[in-house]
């Protein structure tokens, strides 16, 4: 049989997430001349030296590796913007809006276009810090939901990679809550309560956790 019983747990591998992220558009400055490209996924170009143009990330990386262009880092990847985001992440309980694929995009750019990023070490350490703070928030957020029965979760502003990592735990936990609070269980405890005078107290019911 092809599928393992656990295949639902992490529906996407990290490589597949990167594949999805590679379709995000990014700006490049080519240093050569090329005619428009008519791909299945879209039309790009024409490419003229020193004229900036938008292409998908996979194409940008491919051209960069062959030394045919310079990649312009997206505007959210500057030291100022990232410092602001880090500050806001630390101060607030909520997650700051970040591009959905920020982890994958920054990783690809660090690997292939290091020299095109101003202050690359600073940028890199800022992104690592942001990742850590967000992960920590996910951890404390999960602790909260474990105290009460939850039916649905709102994960506002979570990024693709974070959602994928958290997916197995969150989905299994919610499923277990769902199972334990199903009508069959309530019926059973009704039978039991004939013998025991006290009905079980399952704590306050909360519909939705906003984070």
């Amino acid at each position: 049989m092809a599928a393992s019983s656990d295949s639902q747990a992490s529906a996407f591998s990290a490589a597949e997430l990167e594949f999805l992220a590679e379709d995000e558009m990014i700006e490049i400055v080519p240093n050569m001349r090329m005619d428009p490209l008519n791909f299945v996924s879209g039309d790009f170009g024409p490419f003229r030296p020193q004229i900036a143009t938008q292409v998908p990330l996979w194409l940008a990386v491919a051209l960069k590796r062959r030394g045919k262009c310079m990649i312009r880092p997206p505007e959210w990847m500057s030291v100022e913007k990232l410092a602001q985001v880090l500050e806001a992440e630390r101060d607030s309980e909520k997650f700051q809006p970040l591009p959905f694929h920020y982890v994958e995009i920054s990783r690809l750019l660090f690997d292939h276009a290091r020299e095109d990023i101003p202050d690359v070490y600073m940028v890199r350490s800022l992104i690592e810090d942001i990742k850590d703070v967000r992960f920590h928030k996910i951890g404390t957020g999960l602790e909260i939901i474990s105290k009460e029965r939850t039916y649905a979760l709102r994960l506002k502003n979570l990024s693709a990679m974070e959602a994928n990592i958290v997916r197995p735990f969150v989905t299994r936990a919610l499923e277990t809550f769902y199972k334990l609070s199903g009508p069959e269980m309530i019926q059973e405890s009704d039978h039991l309560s004939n013998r025991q005078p006290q009905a079980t107290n399952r704590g306050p019911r909360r519909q939705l956790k906003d984070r």
Partner: protein
Amino acid sequence: MEPGAGESSATDDYESLISTTDSELLKRAWRNEKAAPEILKFEAALVQRSRQQIQLMEETVEEFAKNGVDPLTVSLYQMDLDRTLFLLRSYLRTRLQKIEKCVLHIQKTAELWNRLSKQEQKFAVRCAGDLTQHLEQTVLSKLPDQYQSHLKQSGASEGDDMVPEPKLDIYIICRSKKFLGAFQLDDSGEEPVNIEADDLYALPYKSIKPLVESGQIDLV
């Protein structure tokens, strides 16, 4: 060929309909199929169009290679082709995996059976046949009479309780493109959930099944 792939954030329905490329649609179908616990409807038209485009592209690349077009261009076209091929193959492979997991159940359920393509149905029939034969030869024929069915636990079982079914009440992470307002999760009398656009939610698959089918919610 349709225009660039980055335009599907339009708010207007009509606009988003005409600017969603086949590539985007295939990506979406792939993502939904990977994340959903049961098999979804086969996107026959989309797969057909994608195959045609891929074939066209393969011929183009061959011609380029023959005419001695700049190897950089050829390799870029090849990369794009490989990416599209990967999406298509992974989509089909994921579906086959799901069929293998619950083949007996799919055969029994008309609704699920209709979601398969013709070739998938042929595959399912053979797979079910192989599975049944294997079980019978190795184990079932050696059990006492009452227990020889591969569908029922014993002669006394009411339904086909040896058939594995996909679990529909698992939770999945999803995102809606538009504001959907208050949404009733199920009939257990809980308050409805407010679904905003572009936020991720962890919800039971059962509750949002119709929305996934109509394309209002994407699985992530």
